[in-house]
């Protein structure tokens, strides 16, 4: 802005875009607000559709949190999402780096093989995964929930693209200084791609935190449910207790919201980096 007095330019295109974005924002945020609002109401007030509850109460939170199962699911989700995220950050970048920086026989074939799995929808893979899990005794285990996501083709591809931008000189200088290949990757190459790593970590964490389909299929024991599965079973149990369901949902949403609010900058950058801006 040149001067504080300058009139903001009124541009019909801008107004249209802002209006649309505003409407979109309202449409997306309203359910969230209702969720939080309902979670603060008593059973009797649920059908009173006021945004701000007449007599807000935290009773529902106390009840949900004192149900041991909920904490267990929360822990399961956290543990699984974190483990899978760490695994992706480590293995996707290790493989991506190898594909980007080493010339070896079959390299192109490996790359194509990894890339081609991107084109297979999860729904098609669920049956083979399930059969495999049943065969190996992985049903109802953390590993069973996590194994399909421990490495992803998308993450590998993303990291490969980023490692390609790291100049070879950097790696060769370290090689001459006597570092072994693993240390070069870890100490030199990895710090140079932190923007990509943070994007990968955030997407992986959020994706796993909200994952529903596969965890639902692979688990039958309540103890192993993740939050989304737990909540949906909760919904079935508590058929009409909307305030309880909303409380659970609110609790499940909090970490996601926290991630978004705290890491907004990285998420925006990550989306642009990953070329997902469409």
């Amino acid at each position, binding site marked *: 802005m040149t001067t504080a007095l300058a009139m903001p330019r009124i541009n019909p295109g801008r107004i249209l875009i802002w209006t649309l974005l505003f409407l979109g924002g309202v449409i997306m945020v309203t359910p969230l607000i209702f969720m939080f609002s309902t979670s603060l109401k008593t059973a009797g007030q649920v059908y009173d559709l006021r945004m701000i509850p007449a007599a807000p109460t935290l009773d529902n939170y106390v009840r949900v949190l004192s149900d041991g199962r909920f904490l267990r699911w929360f822990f399961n989700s956290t543990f699984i999402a974190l483990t899978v995220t760490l695994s992706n950050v480590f293995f996707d970048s290790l493989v991506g780096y190898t594909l980007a920086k080493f010339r070896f026989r079959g390299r192109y074939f490996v790359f194509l093989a990894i890339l081609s799995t991107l084109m297979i929808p999860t729904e098609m893979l669920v049956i083979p995964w399930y059969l495999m899990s049943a065969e190996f005794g992985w049903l109802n285990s953390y590993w069973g929930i996590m194994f399909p996501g421990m490495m992803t083709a998308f993450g590998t591809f993303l990291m490969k693209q980023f490692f390609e931008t790291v*100049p070879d*000189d*950097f790696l*060769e*200088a*370290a*090689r*001459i*200084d*006597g*570092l072994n290949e693993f*240390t070069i990757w870890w*100490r*030199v190459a990895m*710090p*140079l791609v*932190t923007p990509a790593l943070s994007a990968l970590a955030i997407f992986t964490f959020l994706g796993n935190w909200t994952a529903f389909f596969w965890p639902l299929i692979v688990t039958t024991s309540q103890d192993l449910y993740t939050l989304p599965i737990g909540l949906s079973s909760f919904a079935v149990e508590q058929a009409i207790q909307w305030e309880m369901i909303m409380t659970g949902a609110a609790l499940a949403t909090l970490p996601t919201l926290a991630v978004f609010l705290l890491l907004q900058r990285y998420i925006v950058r990550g989306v642009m980096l990953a070329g997902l801006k469409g």
Partner: protein
Amino acid sequence: MATIALRNLVKSYGKTDVIHGIDLDIADGEFVVFVGPSGCGKSTTLRMIAGLEEVSGGEILIGGEVVNELDPKRRNIAMVFQNYAIYPHMTVRQNIAFGLYTSPLSRDQKDARVTEAAAMLGLEPLLDRRPAALSGGQRQRVAIGRAMVRNPAAFLFDEPLSNLDAQLRAQMRIEIKRLHQRLGTTIAYVTHDQIEAMTMADRIVVMRDGHILQSGTPSEIYDSPVNVFTAQFIGSPSMNLVPGAEVAGRIAVQPGGPLLVGFRPHDLVVGAPEGAFTVSGAVTAVEPLGPETLVHFESGGRPVIATAPGRMVPAVGSTVTASVAAGALYLFDAATENALGRR
């Protein structure tokens, strides 16, 4: 410190040979500069010495030991790259200390080395900065510092100054040379800048198309180039060449003649008394440099550059006559382009 020897060294990528069996001995403590046009294989040779590139044939010896199969780290050499290759996520101190990453020295000893190198390179006030906050010359010094702390047997430089502006380049030339005098370490240095070669080298190795054309001290190369290529490559502005012939014991311009007559612009003086060789032509351009003026004209169908002494600036279009004193002519065979001696 160590000697470096190349024995019939060959490098090929697939079926194409890029280095065709070169032989070279670099003495302990010698500063050898590889020059040559782009793509002639200078970097490839250096990278083979460093161990970054596999050897396709022949041998490389460092300190008398064949190192063909040794990893870079086992060769005890340090390399400075054109793009510095210092790490943006580390401070200057960390970058320099990175050269000691695998060293068994104690922390204190490492710190002492880093401090010493930083002092020698004038980097002390910058030790806690990151590379992004450094100028090109400072970055290059950090890269040199990282190479220095290891006390390597030899330094390899691949066009270390080509990203710097002319003034900084001149300054860094002197610094690197001084460093060499102080440390006495063997240096192999690649450049395509003949001024760097002339000013820094104990010995210049002129390469073309994967061959060594000539190797010798700067004055040997300057005074006795083996062929037209070396003659024109070393010296600035580059040597004039006109077709000529020997007529009655005198060398004269002759289009299509059996000789190529070479003479350096500096030796071709406008208005000088008749010497061993005289050319004349109409002036096409002048470049007054202050103490002297470069005069461009054409002779025998070839462009020629002469020097006019003092403040004399011939007018464009006027005809000038310039002569070369006896002893300053270089003769080459017009067919093979090989040197035939001085005259």
